[in-house]
């Protein structure tokens, strides 16, 4: 059957099970948009900026477990996607990005809206393609989805010239994939797993550090079984949050630069670190050479290049963490580690990392904690980047798996709203909160139009402290208290919401927080709440830049709070 390249592309997306794509049309991708209405099974969400399409596809992928798809035109359309591509790639999110390109004969001639997109995205994607023949589209799309979604997930970009989208070719969807250079290791090496089990069985003070890999492989039950069987406390990296029930007695919270003080210090006392689906990132580990000095380290990850990259490793296990845990659990003996659990508990009580002064003032922490408490169980939370993100991570108290979606590796301000759009499309029955700062929200707030136009019911919390709060905190603590370019002018967010035709609320006192959150939740569609919070609240605990976890500055609390 002969079809145009654009039709072939759409046929391939249907065969890959794509239900939603996020995009923005333009000259080079027009042939695809021309045929798109013939494929009603593919829902297209028109964003207001291509970065939004990328983050929405990212949020969709994280919440659904499927490969997210973003579409843009050549040149500026593609370059606007770059931030979102890096964001997804750094956080191991499966995504296929399709960009239009100028016609083949124009490539290399500096044509209108021409950009070397495969060149630009080469170091920021898992793989990319420039398709020069419509007959290649099926193979390329098949490979793109396979590469994006398998092994360590990532972004695959497919750049297609306009005339390739227009030309006719015979359409055959390939049955198999031939990629001799791509063979992810899924099963862990049994001898290594037995070594790991042996270390676990002999350890007295082990810590599990559970990361995004648990979520990506769906190893929630296995993680819990291992922790419970061997009585090992569970710590999260930022992206690992919601891979273990927060109400579980073994759950300790997040570690790292703004992690729980008692955990950061406990890494210094631990005799065994079990890293599960993590990459020993600098923000989580502090100064690498001083990380967990007394501990042996087991590292399970699907990406062999992560093992030994940042910190030493005693027992490396390459494989899918779910498969590895299934085997590991068999070899691990039931344990009793009461003294170690008691020690952690004692440290947590003596150096509490969660404390909101009971002084009636509207602290950001109070707002975030209340949102968590008031929102029903079936809910997802996306965040931007900065203080509000760290507080959202610290005060996270939910049990639902994979309900915390944040920008970790790249740290992209403005992630919350477009990501929440994607999450809502993946999980239409759930409440979706976008928690943003006033800085980040102003970076992507134009996507309010996308919410309204498509009736995407996202609740937005703008934590407005009038500053780029985290930058201000650094300037205060490490740059001699000199505030430089951190105070923000803010629009009237209530009027802004109303201008888009959605309810807007303003909260400036504690008493209003819970009722207003409830009011926003009761709105049938999107709603925005601006919280006018204390301007100079600092986020603690904090590991000073370049310091070791053992040098964490605890949260300053009144003596009476310590137990």
């Amino acid at each position, binding site marked *: 059957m002969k079809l145009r390249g654009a039709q072939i592309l759409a046929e391939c997306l249907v065969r890959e099970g794509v239900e939603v794509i996020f995009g923005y049309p333009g000259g080079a991708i027009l042939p695809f948009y021309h045929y798109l209405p013939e494929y009603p099974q593919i829902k297209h969400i028109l964003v207001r900026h291509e970065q939004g399409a990328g983050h929405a596809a990212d949020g969709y992928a994280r919440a659904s477990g499927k490969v997210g798809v973003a579409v843009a035109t050549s040149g500026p359309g593609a370059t606007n996607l770059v931030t979102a591509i890096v964001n997804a790639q750094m956080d191991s999110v499966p995504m296929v990005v399709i960009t239009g390109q100028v016609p083949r004969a124009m490539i290399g001639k500096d044509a209108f809206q021409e950009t070397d997109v495969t060149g630009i995205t080469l170091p920021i994607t898992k793989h990319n393609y420039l398709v020069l023949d419509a007959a290649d589209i099926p193979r390329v799309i098949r490979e793109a989805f396979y590469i994006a979604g398998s092994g360590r997930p990532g972004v695959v970009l497919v750049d297609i010239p306009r005339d390739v989208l227009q030309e006719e070719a015979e359409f055959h969807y390939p049955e198999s994939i031939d990629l001799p*250079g791509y063979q992810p290791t899924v099963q862990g090496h049994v001898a290594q797993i037995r070594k790991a089990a042996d270390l676990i069985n002999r350890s007295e003070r082990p810590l599990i550090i559970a990361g995004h890999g648990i979520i990506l492989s769906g190893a929630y039950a296995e993680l819990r079984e291992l922790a419970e069987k061997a009585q090992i406390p569970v710590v999260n990296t930022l992206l690992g949050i919601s891979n273990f029930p927060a109400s579980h007695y073994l759950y300790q919270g997040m570690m790292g630069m703004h992690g729980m003080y008692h955990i950061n210090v406990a890494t210094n006392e631990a005799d065994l670190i079990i890293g599960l689906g993590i990459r020993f990132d600098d923000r989580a580990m502090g100064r690498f050479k001083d990380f967990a000095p007394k501990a042996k380290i087991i590292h399970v990850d699907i990406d062999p290049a992560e093992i030994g990259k940042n910190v030493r490793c005693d027992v490396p296990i390459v494989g899918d963490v779910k498969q590895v845990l299934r085997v590991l659990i068999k070899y691990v003996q039931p344990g009793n580690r009461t003294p170690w659990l008691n020690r952690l508990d004692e440290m947590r009580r003596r150096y509490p990392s969660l404390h909101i002064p009971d002084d009636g003032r509207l602290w950001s922490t109070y707002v975030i904690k209340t949102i968590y408490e008031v929102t029903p169980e079936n809910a997802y939370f996306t965040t931007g980047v900065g203080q509000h993100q760290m507080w959202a991570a610290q005060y996270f108290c939910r049990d639902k798996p994979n309900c915390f979606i944040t920008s970790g590796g790249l740290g992209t301000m403005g992630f919350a709203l477009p990501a929440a759009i994607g999450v809502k499309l993946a999980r239409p029955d759930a409440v979706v909160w976008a928690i943003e700062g006033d800085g980040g929200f102003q970076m992507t707030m134009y996507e309010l139009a996308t919410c309204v136009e498509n009736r995407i019911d996202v609740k937005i919390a703008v934590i407005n402290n009038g500053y780029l709060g985290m930058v201000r905190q650094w300037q205060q603590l490490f740059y001699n208290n000199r505030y430089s370019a951190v105070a923000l002018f803010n629009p009237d967010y209530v009027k802004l919401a109303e201008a888009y035709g959605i309810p807007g609320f303003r909260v400036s006192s504690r008493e209003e927080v819970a009722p207003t959150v409830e009011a926003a939740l009761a709105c049938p569609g999107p709603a925005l709440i601006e919280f006018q919070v204390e301007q100079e609240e600092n986020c603690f605990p904090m590991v000073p830049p370049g310091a070791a976890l053992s040098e964490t500055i605890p949260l300053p609390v009144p003596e009476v709070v310590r137990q």
Partner: protein
Amino acid sequence: MTEVKKHTIVALVQDQPGVLNRISSLFRRRMFNIDSLAVGPSERPGLSRLTLVIKADADGLEQVVKQLYKLIDVIKISELDEETSVQRELALIKVSAPAPVRAEIIPIIDIFRAKIIDVAPDALIIEATGTEDKIDALISLLRSYGIQEVVRTGRVAMSRASARARAVQARSA
């Protein structure tokens, strides 16, 4: 940190457009130190073979290999050591050689088993193959006569027929 030294790595890659770009971009992006890179078709259609000389300590070498394996177009990486492989470089050297000194230069060329491949009234082009050390030595001996131009291919290497190249697996253990 262990000792930093030169390593010869041979990569079998799919002959896709941009594969060299992917590899060189990886080295630049991850601050790996590349000494030379030579590439050409292999014995199998559709596959190219690259010889890379890199400077790294043991951990750095491990990272280079693992990161290379992450490239979809890279099929196999082997590290070749000097005992069990042959390693060669080709150089073309244009040296000033007016008649009075030509007789001095020719014995040097012979000692190095190099060849004169082009002659002009006042200059010669010499073709030399060998290890980098040998070519460096030849160039330094010729320097006093006036070297006009040098072009070198970078190292190419192959495991000896009697030895099996050690395929460096990403440490999956």
